[in-house]
């Protein structure tokens, strides 16, 4: 049977979501105001970061997050390394805890996703405060966290799509 134990291609579960997340960030960077309000700026890469940690352990997501973080910094003009470190800092604990989280309900997973986003924001906040010599606005960080947390349904879709794609990790 050819359907048994087929390895999951990295380009499908890592490359595709990475490019999609970066494309969404690129679109949201357009200087557009809708109803007088600027577009939100969520950290779209948190969606694949959380999903990759839940789908299976692998080396590729870490380097994808490094590249994606650097691309995000180029897009936003942030200090190089800031978002790469923040995303990896959120990805690592979820990766270690994936066996515990695997059987949780979507609502509980959403809460864990929120905690992971909070960790990423905390690391970004600390790095930014260290570089600039002054603490960034908590309100601005909170708004970005909220916009990112609202993207969890996309992460759930990604997990659902690829969780059972590799029989070795069912």
């Amino acid at each position, binding site marked *: 049977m050819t359907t048994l134990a087929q390895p999951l291609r990295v380009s499908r579960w890592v490359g595709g979501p990475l490019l999609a997340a970066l494309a969404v960030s690129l679109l949201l960077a357009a200087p557009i105001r809708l109803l007088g309000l600027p577009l939100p700026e969520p950290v779209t890469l948190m969606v694949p970061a959380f999903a990759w940690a839940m789908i299976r*352990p692998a080396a590729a997501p870490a380097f994808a997050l490094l590249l994606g973080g650097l691309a995000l910094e180029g897009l936003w003009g942030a200090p190089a390394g800031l978002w*790469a470190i923040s995303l990896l800092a959120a990805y690592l604990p979820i990766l270690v805890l994936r066996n515990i989280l695997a059987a949780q309900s979507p609502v509980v997973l959403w809460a864990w996703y929120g905690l992971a986003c909070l960790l990423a924001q905390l690391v970004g906040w600390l790095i930014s405060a260290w570089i600039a010599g002054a603490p960034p606005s908590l309100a601005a960080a909170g708004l970005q966290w909220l916009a990112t947390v609202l993207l969890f349904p996309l992460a759930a879709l990604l997990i659902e799509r690829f969780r059972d794609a590799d029989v070795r990790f069912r």
Partner: protein
Amino acid sequence: MSFRDNPFGEVRLPLLLGAVAACVVALVVAFALLMVDRRQTYQTGAYNALRKASDVVVAPVTGAVAAPVRWAGGVAEGIGGYFFAASENRRLKAELAAARVWRERAIALADENARYRALLGLAVDPPVPMVTGRTVSESRGPYANTRLVNVGAAQGVRVGHPVLSENGLVGRVIGVSSRVSRVLMLTDTASRTPVMIQRTRARAILTGDGGWAPGLAYLRGRDPARVGDLVLTSGDGGVLPRGITVGRVVRGVDGDWRVQLASDSAPIDFVRILLFEDFVKLEDLRALERPAPPPPPTPAPRTDPPAAAVAPAQKSRGAAP
């Protein structure tokens, strides 16, 4: 044995360890990049080739994305203008009447100012050339507030040039490619701008923190600011010209003095980049030593001189042929 019995269970631990090791390696690389990045420096070389390349790629894409929305916004504005033309006309007539009064005053003051400058022989600032560009990308997050503008080194833009909207100061250029410039907004955590309160002339440093209203740090003096005071650039340090409108003083939720930016009163679409060079950077300092133009004739004093002093003068004038 079925697959549910998980015959590959033994490969999980090495894979997890490999993933964690990859994470650690990626973290080390990212931290090293953070250490070598020098985003805040004024050295042009620090804005490395990778950032320039990403700016050149991002600018046309976001510009193309924003174009249809901008076009739709223009259509909606046109429709609104058609339906509200009468009320708009009334408002504009009232504004024009008020502006005429200010125009007369401005002309008189400019004339008086020019005369005083000429009398005192002041070496005034030379006129500052500028280029206009359109913002094609923006970041609004807590850790980076920058914009890409579609003019660059080809139009004479250089690192450090101040950027203005029609309402006030927006930020300054921190990176330049051939046809794209990256602007550090006043709200960015790395932004520090010397400003002064117009009413008291008190100096402060406008400190961005990623929020909507940057703070006023190092504000000194007795009662240096009040809510609503106008904030201008002080020109200290030679980074920015003096007297550019920045915003109005407000009290933050945390009780600190903050500034509501004038540039936030309207969407920042087109911006002007002042090709400003501080005097200390001028290559030809002799330009400042050129003699001032001769003073215009001064009007006669209003107070009448004493009669005793006037009479001989009139006599002597009358005696002259």
